[in-house]
């Protein structure tokens, strides 16, 4: 059985949790929380912690099983299978939308004349290769890509400091705590996307008592690293553009990359950043590709290259169905807010609650 180390789990988890969230996070946070939106990012991501702890406690109770298998064991075969079908549908659909977003990002920002299929096919080839190579290769790929994402983000944020406007962050908390709650609620779907991935990857995680403690530690680290980075991304955008503008911009970070100038001589470095963002996009799409393949294998017993190719075809079909960027945005928000968030936030506590109840009642 393929396994990843606890360290790999942390970096892979951080890379999946981060994904391309740094692109829309600022407009989402300020849209809901206004000027104080940046304070809602970390609490939003922190929702990963209680949910991850529930999932890892289920792993301790049911080693070598993913949450779909655990659902079948706890809730019965048919309810478990229904949950599996929902899981496959949501993650498959969302993966396709993310592939479409990958094309949208490049077409909008730096390569307006390059055909969309090139981004879709190019991105999907990388994803397919990663998925075919297995979880361990995916984890190693993340170990290389994630530090690059962090460095690129820190550079982008740091080099934007000279463009900061005076006082854009003030007044702080003038509307009370309400904007933070509203913002955190809009950020929570990012946390739930990660939880869906965690639900599937359980079978590849070590499950001794010591390693479980390390896994929990890894979740904490990943959440704080990604939460703080995304918070800084929102913060710098509010400081540079002001909350109204951040809310208006589609991908504020790409605009931020375009205004980076080093000593009035070097500009146009956004293309370098864009290369790294592709890596982030591939990690996220691969994560959802994996969840679909795990779901198919668990629920229907479908596995192998031909099923991977079928998933590729579905992803491509969805991506080509959303060539209109504005519709894509609406659809991603709808899936995040009305499918991923409710599904994951209800499914995991129910499963955890039932397992606790059964354990307490001594039911096998």
């Amino acid at each position, binding site marked *: 059985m393929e396994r990843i180390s606890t360290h790999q789990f942390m970096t892979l988890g951080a890379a999946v949790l981060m994904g391309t969230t740094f692109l829309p996070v600022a407009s989402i946070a300020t849209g809901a929380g206004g000027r104080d939106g940046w304070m809602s990012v970390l609490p939003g991501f922190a929702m990963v912690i209680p949910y991850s702890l529930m999932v890892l406690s289920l792993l301790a109770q049911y080693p070598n099983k993913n949450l779909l298998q655990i659902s079948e064991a706890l809730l019965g075969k048919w309810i478990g299978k229904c949950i599996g079908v929902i899981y496959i549908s949501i993650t498959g659909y969302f993966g396709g939308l993310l592939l479409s977003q990958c094309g949208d990002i490049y077409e909008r920002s730096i390569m307006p004349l390059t055909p969309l299929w090139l981004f879709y*096919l190019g991105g999907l080839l990388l994803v397919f290769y990663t998925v075919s190579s297995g979880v361990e290769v995916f984890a190693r790929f993340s170990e290389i890509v994630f530090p690059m994402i962090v460095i690129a983000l820190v550079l982008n944020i740091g080099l934007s400091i000279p463009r900061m406007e005076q006082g854009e962050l003030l007044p702080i908390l003038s509307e009370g705590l309400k904007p933070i709650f509203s913002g955190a609620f809009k950020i929570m779907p990012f946390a739930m996307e990660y939880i869906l991935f965690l639900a599937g990857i359980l079978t590849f995680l070590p499950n001794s008592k010591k390693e479980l403690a390390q896994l929990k530690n890894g979740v904490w680290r990943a959440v704080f690293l990604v939460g703080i980075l995304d918070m800084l991304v929102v913060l710098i955008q509010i400081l540079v553009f002001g909350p*109204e503008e951040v809310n208006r911009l589609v991908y504020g970070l790409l605009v931020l990359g375009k205004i980076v100038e080093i000593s009035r001589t070097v500009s146009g470095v956004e293309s370098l950043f864009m290369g790294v963002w592709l890596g982030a996009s591939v990690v996220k799409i691969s994560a959802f590709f994996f969840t679909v393949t795990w779901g198919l294998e668990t629920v229907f017993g479908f596995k192998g290259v031909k099923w991977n190719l079928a998933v590729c075809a579905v992803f491509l079909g969805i991506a080509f169905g959303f060539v209109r960027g504005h519709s894509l945005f609406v659809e991603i928000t709808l899936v995040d807010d009305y499918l991923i968030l409710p599904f994951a936030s209800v499914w995991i506590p129910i499963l955890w609650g039932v397992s606790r109840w059964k354990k307490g009642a001594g039911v096998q």
Partner: protein
Amino acid sequence: MKRNGCRVGLVLILITGLLFITGCWGKREVEELAPLISIGFDLGQKPNTYLVTGQYALPNKGAAGAEVKDWTMSFEASSLREAYEMTYKILNRTPFNGSVKVIVIGEDMAKAGFKDMLDFTQRFSEFRRTIYLVLTKGKAQDVLNVKLRNGEMPAMSIKNHLEQGDELSSFPTVRLGHYLTILGRKSTAPIMPLVKSIKSGDGGIEYKAEGKDGAEEIQLEGAGVFRGDRLVDLLTDEETKGYMWLENNVVHRFINTVGLEESKVNFSAHVLKSTTKYKVADTNGKIELQYQIKASVAVEEVLGQNEQLSETEWVELMKGAEKSFAKVIEKECELSIQKEKQLNLDFLGVGRHIEERNSAYWKTVKDQWAEKIADFPVSVNVEVTVHHSGMSNNSVINSTSERQE
């Protein structure tokens, strides 16, 4: 074995994919591009049209070094994209917008509103938000067509001027991104530096003109105040300088006390450092915005000093100079505040300052802010410190007989 075959297949697909990337087939040499340096916006003669002036720097084919040719042309069009289409039909190169440095807005266009013209520049990904925005008296077309005596392109001259603005701090530097941020604040009125072409003899400036008539120099002085995208009024040089003090935008400045009051001795100084802070004071329920300006200067000219002074007398003279400089700065600030009240337009961002420091009070006045600007109390307190008076204390003194004459 099967796995290796798969990998080789994937690598081959990736290599084939690379060949189809447009970068390999659709490459363009620099000489085939026309980097756009500046765009000028004026109103067109036909209704609902604009006169769009594009200033391009065409790199010469085979030229050594960075030899470029100025290519400036105006098109009457209903949108910026239409103007581009007209450019394509004439110019045998591909216009490139990533190099735009300055957008010049003509006076009539500014009065009519230029929001629609700016939309393309903030939407199309090739443009950067670091582009400078300037307003011009008269037509933008005229400014961009000025044949400068030093042979520089007008757009590059304006850009270089703006980038050296800190040396003088007498006009604001506004980039597209900043303008959009200010628009987002809602309570603050945007401001833009004013650029104008000057002929020999204008405003006390004379030069040896090479052409028969027409302007051959460009000057940055003053600013325009906008309500959203519409020009409302122009600020004088002094009012603009006041704005610069109050906005904490003064890095270095030259100030002098000539004409301030009836005094035999006047001073000129170079501002070495300046900081403006503000606070929203609540005195018995009366809210007031108080500016506190602290400037350090070096005295560089002493005019009308005809007597030798002892060291202690010189100290007293410099203390007097500090007070005079403070009055000069205060006067400039007061002029700016008066203009704000007269226009009922908050270009100083007073409302935003109140919001930052006293958001509870701001919530009670923000809806009627436009009516409250004129009466809202604003005070300025200036402190000037003379660091030194250059390489000498006393000025050169004429002989006793000459002084008597």
